[in-house]
């Protein structure tokens, strides 16, 4: 669970995007992983091995646990992609489908 520091909340340039089709809001400069956490989404995928829930762990692109589908492309590291207006972020369940 994470919250935005109040002084930043008011100064923020907000970015509207969607999480699993639901409207959400982030701050310009947030990574998708940070934006998910800021919106109360702690688990962003289930593993293809056992279906266990996972969320971001390292926030620097080395753990590969923050994998999400962004604008239709799966297996994107959420912490390496900046949230953009209108972006569609989807949590991932199981193996990524081929052609997504």
């Amino acid at each position, binding site marked *: 669970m994470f919250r935005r520091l109040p002084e930043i909340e008011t100064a923020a340039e907000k970015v509207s995007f969607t999480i699993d089709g639901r409207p959400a809001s982030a701050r310009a400069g947030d990574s998708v992983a940070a934006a998910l956490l800021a919106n109360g989404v702690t688990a962003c995928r289930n593993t*293809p*091995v056992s279906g266990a829930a996972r969320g971001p762990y390292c926030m620097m692109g080395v753990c590969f646990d923050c994998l999400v589908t962004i604008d239709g*492309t*799966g*297996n994107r590291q959420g912490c390496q992609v900046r949230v953009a207006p209108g972006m569609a972020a989807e949590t991932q369940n*199981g*193996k*990524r*489908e*081929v*052609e*997504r």
Partner: protein
Amino acid sequence: MTATASPKPVSFCPDVIVIGGGLHGCSAALHLSMRGVRVLVLEKDHVARHASGVNAGGVRQLGRHVAEVPLSVASMALWHGIRDLVDDDCGFESHGQIKVAETEAELETARARVADLNALGFTHEEVVGQEELRSLVPAIADHCVGALVSRGDGAAIPFRTTFAFRRKAIALGARFQEGGAVTRLVRQGGLWTVETADGGRFEAPVVVNAAGAWADRIAAQAGEPVPLEVIAPMLMITARVAPFIKPVVGATGRTLSFKQFPNGTVLIGGGLLGRAVRDENRTELDFSQVSVNARTVWDLFPCMRGATIVRSWAGIEARMPDDIPVIGPSGTEPDLYHSFGFSAHGFQLGPIVGRITADLITAGSTDLPIDPFRIGRFAA
């Protein structure tokens, strides 16, 4: 009992020393041990460290050189009972192997090949048209017109397979010595003396040369040098994707090996070459060649275009000028047998060639036709 890494004076007197702990060495060790022969395997690194541990794992009869076909067919029977042979299923799955034809001319080549095989009495390969190809491999690109198919073929996991052969051989009494390369091989008074770089000294009446990309050095020590080329076939593997293909796929007009494992990862290879530095146990990848491989997949499997490659590698393998292995007795020395040079397609032959080697050693002959593989074919 596990292998030891440190050299010790041998109190175990082997009947046969096998040089090389790859699949062919382990298979020879297993088949000999099954017949009560005492075997010592000398492996310079660790079992399955090189080609045997890192190849594409294709278990195919499909598309082989005609000389290899009888051996391959016999080996396939062993693969279908591999669990009984080595107490491990080796990850073997059989959903067929397919060689796609992209043009009518390629399909015609396939038909001619099937006719040749049929004439020799082999019926394991057949030609299918576009419709059947699409039903076998729905993800194949639209332009493909048909394919050469071997339905009994499949794939297994190379490291696990080689390890299983080793484990079973040990259970039946074989011993493995890892960590020292063979430096000297000398025959005196009916006995071979084999010395290793870590100070080991071993003796046995019979030696098997299964030394892979280093086998030419062993052969040279026996006075029969061979033109062995060291190659580094490259492979790459993707992150897991949802299952979409069962057979293993190759192509006719260009090099490709394409398969999806049960865990969802897709292995892509086909024999494009990097560079090997065999004395440093090192290979270098050539990404412009990897790119060619990727392009082939792009053309044949459009759904894979967004797949992510998570790793690539290359093993150290031996290739002979005529692309078929060296199997059989030495041409210069008694009690020396060769099993090397499998030219990037030896994995499927592993189970049978070990049996052939054991036949030659214990009975002096084998029922399978191995004359095309004789080492003497390279003599000037």
